[in-house]
């Protein structure tokens, strides 16, 4: 019999499976995915033969007992299952077992990994990609996708349902050590399930943008702060972000500073004359060879200081002002000064060092709320270009002594995405000083390169891995003590009024779930409230509630210290 070519091809590996019958119903359990399928015995028999036999052989073997039509139908059904990532295929589990590395689930789309960074415009997205790339050298990464498969060495996708329970099952089955959130979403609804459902696995959330988006980013971060457990953490590239949030929250220690890196192999110094000559020819602008050049590198938008840059250009008509940006945005409709040159559409990433090396000075006037680190500054520094930046956000930390830092005005609250303002004259003055002092400028350029070499993506990844190890240990030794608290009315006959007393039970004996006699203690109702909430909420949530009630940070800190200390002292 000629077999019509089915789309289900064999041999192929199958998942870990189990089958059972219940009355007349036949079930197969896909243990790798955590799904239960009601099917029939024929499917099971095919699956048993699947790893070793071709489809023809399977057909031959089974046609003694089943009609070929039924077998074809079963193949068809299996093909559908395969497309859904069920029952068959390589989940990477075998590869997984051989390596002894951290297993990190990345809470983001697989495209974060697979996308081409050549034309990525967002520093944040680029940094996400670089971190994941570097992390994959030290940890296995897992992404959620429609199918379970091996994407590349150390990178896998896992499929499964989207229910909370199935997510937990997947974490467990794949022995996930930690969850990494490369970007905090603005949509809180995505947020909350992650920390609630992480089942004790540390979750590290990366802050790229401390502010901006009209305050909605801050809200997302504050929501994450509330939902996170004691063994979770934020990472932020600069201390300034941590300091910003320390104004508003008690537990600033959950913000860990792990700087970004820079690809200092790609972004490196070149002979400036040669670079200029090449660019001059490419742009057909001979002046580029001879004039001093101040560069702008980034999105040419008002909040990135584009308007300031234009004003500086007008102040220094003898200097060329280069704009390396994806587009001029609204400024393309304006009459720009003649000494301002836009190189055109953003070139591919590999070409960027060439343009950066033409700069004598890199001017970075950004005061956007989302500014966290200034990847662009570091990339230019890696090319040996001294920066002139504002003292906004983390820029001074990045630049350190390897550039010029100009004081800007920081707004108490954002206006749109604007979080500050810098006087063009002040930037212009700093630029002029550098342009007029060749020795200083050259020396600063060297320092800039050296400074940039301190920032490596590899180091970022290693620190991240170390943080996961630390958090895992913290989780290991953490214990959630359960206390039964109650609030009883208490009558004060002198004042003829009722007040609230609270009683804590099971202080010294907690093996039994039932509250026991003679282990009860009176306590302050706020501490009792905190202890009650800790049964179902995080410490940060309790902090939020207490701040609402008590309104004083120091008092809240005192209550939380007492409660935490008490919980630690009485934990089993």
């Amino acid at each position: 019999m000629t077999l019509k070519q089915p789309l289900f091809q064999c041999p192929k590996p199958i998942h870990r499976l189990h089958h059972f019958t219940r009355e007349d119903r036949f079930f197969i359990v896909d243990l790798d995915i955590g799904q239960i399928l009601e099917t029939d015995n024929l499917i099971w028999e095919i699956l048993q033969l699947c790893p070793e036999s071709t489809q023809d052989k399977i057909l031959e073997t089974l046609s003694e007992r089943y009609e070929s039509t039924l077998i074809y139908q079963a193949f068809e059904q299996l093909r559908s299952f395969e497309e859904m990532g069920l029952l068959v295929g390589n989940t990477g589990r075998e590869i997984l077992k051989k390596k002894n590395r951290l297993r990190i689930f990345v809470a983001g789309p697989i495209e974060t990994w697979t996308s081409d960074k050549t034309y990525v415009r967002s520093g944040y997205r680029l940094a996400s990609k670089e971190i994941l790339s570097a992390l994959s050298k030290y940890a296995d990464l897992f992404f959620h996708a429609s199918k379970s498969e091996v994407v590349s060495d150390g990178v896998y996708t896992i499929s499964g349902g989207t229910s909370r329970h199935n997510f937990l099952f997947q974490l467990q089955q794949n022995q996930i050590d930690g969850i990494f959130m490369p970007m905090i979403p603005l949509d809180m609804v995505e947020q909350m399930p992650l920390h609630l459902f992480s089942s004790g696995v540390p979750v590290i959330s990366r802050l790229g943008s401390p502010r901006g988006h009209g305050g909605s980013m801050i809200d997302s971060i504050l929501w994450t702060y509330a939902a996170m457990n004691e063994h979770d953490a934020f990472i932020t590239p600069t201390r300034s972000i941590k300091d910003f949030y320390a104004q508003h929250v008690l537990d600033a220690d959950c913000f860990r500073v792990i700087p970004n890196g820079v690809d200092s192999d790609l972004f490196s110094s070149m002979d400036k004359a040669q670079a200029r000559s090449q660019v001059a020819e490419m742009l057909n602008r001979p002046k580029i060879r001879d004039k001093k050049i101040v560069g702008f590198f980034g999105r040419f938008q008002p909040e990135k200081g584009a308007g300031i840059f234009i004003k500086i250009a007008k102040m220094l008509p003898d200097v060329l002002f280069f704009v390396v940006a994806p587009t001029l945005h609204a400024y393309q409709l304006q009459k720009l000064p003649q000494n301002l040159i836009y190189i055109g559409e953003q070139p591919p990433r590999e070409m960027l060092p060439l343009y950066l090396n033409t700069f004598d000075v890199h001017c970075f006037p950004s005061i956007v709320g989302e500014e966290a680190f200034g990847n662009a500054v570091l990339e230019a520094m890696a090319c040996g270009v001294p920066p002139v930046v504002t003292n906004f956000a983390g820029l001074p930390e990045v630049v350190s002594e390897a550039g010029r830092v100009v004081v800007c005005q920081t707004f108490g609250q954002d206006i749109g995405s604007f979080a500050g303002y810098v006087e063009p004259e002040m930037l212009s003055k700093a630029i002029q000083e550098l342009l007029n002092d060749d020795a200083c400028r050259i020396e600063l350029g060297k320092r800039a390169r050296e400074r940039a070499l301190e920032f490596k993506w590899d180091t970022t990844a290693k620190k991240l891995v170390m943080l996961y190890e630390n958090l895992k240990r913290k989780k290991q030794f953490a214990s959630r003590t359960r206390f039964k608290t109650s609030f009883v009315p208490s009558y004060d006959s002198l004042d003829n009024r009722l007040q609230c007393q609270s009683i804590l039970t099971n202080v010294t004996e907690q093996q039994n779930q039932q509250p026991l006699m003679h282990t009860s203690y009176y306590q302050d109702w706020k501490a009792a409230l905190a202890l009650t909430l800790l049964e179902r909420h995080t410490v940060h949530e309790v902090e939020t509630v207490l701040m609402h009630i008590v309104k004083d940070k120091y008092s809240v800190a005192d209550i939380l210290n007492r409660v935490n200390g008490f919980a630690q002292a009485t934990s089993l």
Partner: protein
Amino acid sequence: MIDFPVTLHEIEKFQIDNRNYVVDLDRNELVCVDLVVWNVLELCRSSSREEIIRQLKEQHTEAEIFEAFECIRQFAELGLLVSNTVRRVPDENRKLRLLTFLSQIPTAQPENGSNYLLLESLSRHMEVTVGLPKDQWSESYRDDKVFHFMPIETDLKRARTYYINATYDVTMAFAPVDFGLLSVEMNEVIPFFSWNNVPTIVRVHSGVKNEEAFINFVLAVYGAKRPFDAIVVDAPWLIPRFQEILSSEVDFCVIPDPVDLERFQPYEDKMIGKRCINAIFDTQEVFQKLVVGIIAGEVSEVNYRVGKFVAELCPELFFLVFAAGLPDLYLNNLPNNLVFFTETEQFGTDPHLLPMLLNGIDICFFHATLQSSSSLLFQSLACGMPTLIGTANAIPEFENACAFIDLKKGITDREHLKRVLEDLKQLLVDSREMERLSTEGRKLAENFSADVVSLQFVNLMHSLTQRQLETQSKSTHNSRRSLFCYNYDSNYGSVRSQALQHPHASSESIEVALAKEFLESHTRLQTEMLLTEIYNGDREKACHILEKLSGLIL
């Protein structure tokens, strides 16, 4: 806490590669569990918690088993593996099973007579088990014909394990006047009520020395009690007092202590009583003057002041003040027409002593407060003693049977006492009214026979078990908790706290979110107390929130 046995979903269990899997076919979900949970699941359909522990304790520690219980409870919250746990429904054809705790064996001896009388009459309608401290236990108690006795551990921390073992339908605790007994102390009210799902009756007696401590005890019980528990007070005048304190209605039940109507009855010959008084106090005045009995409460100082004042004001009457425990120093230099009866121990030795004493009294004044024992009142009514009740609130239950005088101010107010004496004197000369009060008083007391009272308790217990089943079937656990977090106000550059409801992230006030959460694990009164504190004493705001939420929380 999860109770066993439970109804499981349709599940399939299997073990592969040293892992234990459970398929929930009703939910189409797969879970991986540890061995302890696996073993508990084997047993939990048909065994109680205690039986499960007993069967598994060879393989696992108690802590592991309790953790497994908690794991299964969490699965139940997720809607996995376990249906809503349903408590065993009492078989209608079977007697209710009552468990109570006492500090010593109840006897027919008068000093704890009313408890014994009550329990003994209850035992005719239900199976009564009395838990006694181990050091009070004797093997001979096993043969008791009336009660089942059960020894409990001396270490009271473990006392409640018997609740685990028990398959009782109702429990009862006696709130004693002094808190030295086994029964519930104030800071242990919560454990007592949290133990399991069995309805609990807390029996509260009037006649207390320390009013504030008593009030706070009852408030603690009231705060802790669940919808299917009950506080049963022995006197109706307790209710207005608590309503005044709580500024709201209270749902206490009123069931007086049973009166032994055979012991306490009117003698035909009143002289027997008078001779008794004479014998005890060695005074002839009891034969020469009308005798007024005064029950003013348990506070010695009050009794003394009241007694002295009325005796000096009315030398033509003889006053017998019931003042248990009055120190001897108060008994010096008393007027001839005043005696204090202090020796309650005597009642214990001679069951007829108190009835004789009461029969020797011509009229009684009873000050209806927390501090006055209602038992004494009912006993005196049973003896046909005409009674004037001083009360700040009307007591409709006694309308026909007693005379009343409004006593909004305390009994030690002299003007009030003068009015009391005037009323008493008026009554004493009105023989028809006295006769009527005597007859009606006795009739009223007949409503407090052991049989009648025990039936009231039985009916109450039935209604509580029914209410408990209804509460259980309605209850749903809201596993979707709010997220308490900061919200950034970009206008001010500051943060404020909010509660976000999952999953739609809609914002609500912290107070409302707290109220919702607390109502799941605490009683309404407890939640109200907490909210009141949060609102800096504004109870109205707290009540307003709870009113809005009532009906939204199942």
